[in-house]
C-alpha cells in the first residue's frame, strides 16, 4: 500500500508553525517514512499530485491569493487542520481588523519616518494581490476539521496529532499540548 500524503501551506502568518514542524528534529526522518509529502514548501511540488490524507494550514487569509490557496487545499485534502493562532483566529495579523486598511497602508508607505515617496504612491501594481478588507480565520473561508492551538503549537503537539491521524488512532492530546501557550 502506498503511503498517505500530506500537504502544507503558509498563508498570512510568520512561518513559525512550519518551523515548529521542523522542531520535531530527528523525527523528521521517521515522518518521511510514514508519509509522502505532496504540495508543500518543503519540496518542489507546486500543484497537488493527488488526494491528500492531511492538509496543514498555517496563517489566516489576508489577501485574495490566500483565499484561493485555502480553497484549493480544501478541495484536495481529506482532513484539513488549522495549525496555530493565525489560522484559527487570524492571529497577530488580524490586529489590523479594527483599523481601516487604508490607514495601515498609509502608515507604511506615506507616513513612516523613513519613507521617501515624492509621488505619494501606495503599492498597487497588478502583479501584487489585493489585500482583503480584514484578516479572516480559515474556518470562515472553508470547513476546517481540526484546530491545533498555540503560537506556534509545539513540535510534540504537531507530531502526536499527525501520527494519530495517519495511523488511525484516536486523537487524544493532553492539556499541556493544546493549551494556548
Amino acid at each position: 500500500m502506498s503511503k498517505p500524503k500530506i500537504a502544507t501551506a503558509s498563508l498570512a502568518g510568520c512561518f513559525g508553525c512550519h518551523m515548529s514542524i521542523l522542531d520535531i528534529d530527528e523525527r523528521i526522518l521517521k515522518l518521511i517514512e510514514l508519509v509522502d509529502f505532496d504540495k508543500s514548501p518543503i519540496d518542489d511540488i507546486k500543484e497537488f499530485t493527488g488526494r491528500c490524507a492531511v492538509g496543514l494550514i498555517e496563517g489566516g487569509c489576508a489577501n485574495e491569493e490566500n483565499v484561493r490557496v485555502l480553497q484549493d487545499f480544501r478541495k484536495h485534502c481529506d482532513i484539513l487542520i488549522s495549525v496555530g493562532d493565525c489560522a484559527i483566529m487570524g492571529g497577530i495579523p488580524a490586529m489590523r481588523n479594527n483599523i481601516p486598511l487604508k490607514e495601515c497602508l498609509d502608515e507604511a508607505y506615506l507616513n513612516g519616518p523613513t519613507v521617501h515617496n515624492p509621488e505619494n504612491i501606495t503599492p498597487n501594481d497588478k502583479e501584487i494581490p489585493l489585500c482583503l478588507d480584514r484578516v479572516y480565520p480559515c474556518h470562515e473561508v472553508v470547513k476546517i476539521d481540526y484546530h491545533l492551538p498555540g503560537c506556534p503549537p509545539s513540535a510534540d503537539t504537531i507530531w502526536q496529532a499527525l501520527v494519530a491521524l495517519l495511523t488511525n488512532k484516536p486523537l487524544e492530546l493532553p492539556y499541556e499540548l493544546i493549551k494556548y501557550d
Partner: protein
Amino acid sequence: MSNSKSKRVIIEPVTRVEGHGKVSILLDENNKVTQARFHIVEFRGFERFVQGRPYWEMPVLVQRLCGICPVSHHLAAAKAMDKIVGVDKLTPTAEKMRRLMHYGQMFQSHALHFFHLCSPDLLFGFDADPKIRNVIGVAIKYPELAVQGVMMRKYGQEIIKATAGKKIHGTGAIPGGINKNLSIAERDVFLKDLKQMLEWSKGALKIAKDYTVANLDTLKPFGSFDSNHLSLIRKDGAMDLYHGNLRAITADGKKIFDQVDYSNYLDYIAEEVKSWSYMKFPFIKSLGPKKGWYRVGPLARVNTCDFIDTPLAEAARKEFMAVTGGRPNNITMAYHWARMIELLHSIEKIDELLHDKDLQGTNLVVKGQRRNEGVGLIEAPRGTLFHHYKVNDDDQVVMANLIVSTTHNNEPMNLAVQKVAADFIDGVPNITEGLLNRIEVAIRAYDPCLSCATHAMGKMPLKVTLFDYQGNEIASKTKE
C-alpha cells in the same frame, strides 16, 4: 504597462500558492530583457496596528513578524524598550543571556539555510534533477550531512528555549533586562555537545569554501555587481552581531560613514516606495536612491568589519578576504561562504558565553528614567534589523518604524534577478529549466525572509508564463 512590442514573462515562486513574492520580466521584440522585477506580494501592516498597545508587549508581539528568526525581532524590540524604560546598560547577566539567545538564533538559522536549503544546490548542482535537489534528496544521498543539519538546528533551538522559554516566540527579554538566567544544569547539557557542534561547523564552512573556490570562475559573475555594504560594528571595528554602531562602505571599501550611533539612523537611511512591491527600497540618504542602495547580511558583515574576535572565524575571514585581494567581496554567491564563517563564529561565541559565570548571575533587570522614544538595532541572520518606537505618557505605542533585514536587500535581489535574467534569457525565446533554477539560486543567496515559504525550505516551485505582445499566453512551464 508593456509597450506593444514587448513580451511579458511572469515567474511566480511559491507565491501564487503561498502569496509572498514573484518575478516579472519584460522582453523586447528581440527577446532582450528590458525589465526584471522581484515583487513582494505580502502586506501585514504592523507599523499601524501596534499603535495603541502598551510598549512592554512589543518584544513579544512584533516577533510574530517572523517565525524563522523571531529572536531577532524579540531582541531588537527589547533593545528599543530598554531605551523607553531609560536603561542604557544592562546587567552583565542580562546582556550575556540575550547574547547567548542571539548566537543560538544565528546558529540555528544559518544551519537551517545551509543544510536544508542551499546544500542541495551545492551538492547536486544547479542543473540537477529537481526531484532530488531538495532536503529529502540530501537525506537520502547524504544522510550523515542531513542529520548534522537537523542536529545543529536543534542545538540552536534548544539554546533559544533555555534563554527565551520557548523555541519559537519566547519571552526571555523584557524592557531593561531578561527574565531568567542559565542554570548550571542547563549549561552542562550544552557543554556536552559543544565540541561536536564546533567540528560540524568547521565541516560546513569547508564545504562552502571549497565549493566557492572550486567554482570561482562560474560564481564570480553570477548575479553579481558592485554595491555598498552596511552593518553594525563594534567600537574597535570587530564584527558584533548583537550590538554596535553603524558602518557603511563602498564596493571598494571606502567608508561612507562609520561609528554612527544608530539612534540617529533617520539622518542616514530612507526607504523609497515603488508601486510594484509591498517591500520598500532603503538607501543611504547622502548618496540618494539611485546610488545609495546597499547590501546587508553575512557578506556585508564580513566585508565591513576589520576583524572577527574569535580565532577560527578570524582565520576563515582572512582566507575569504584573500580571494578578492583584501577588497570587499561583491560576489553574490559568496554569501554562502560568509554565512558559514558566521556559523563558526556563533558557536565560538556560544562556547565563550557558556564558560562565563555571569550567566548564573541573579541581577537580571535595571530600571531607569522613563523616555518616550527608543531605537533598537541588531544584526539578524539576514542583516541589520531596525526597530524604532515612540510611546505616549499612557505607555501606548504611538509610532513604530520597522526596517527588516531582507528589506535592505530588496534592490540587490532585484539586481541579481535582472543580472541573471539578462545573462541567461537574452535572445532566448523559450524559458529554460536552467533559467528558472538560476533565478532561484540568485535570490536564495540572500536567504530572504520575505517569502518565508520559499526561503525556509529552499525550494521555489516556479511557474513561468510567456505572453506575446498582444498579451496572449504562448507558453507556460512549471518547474516540478
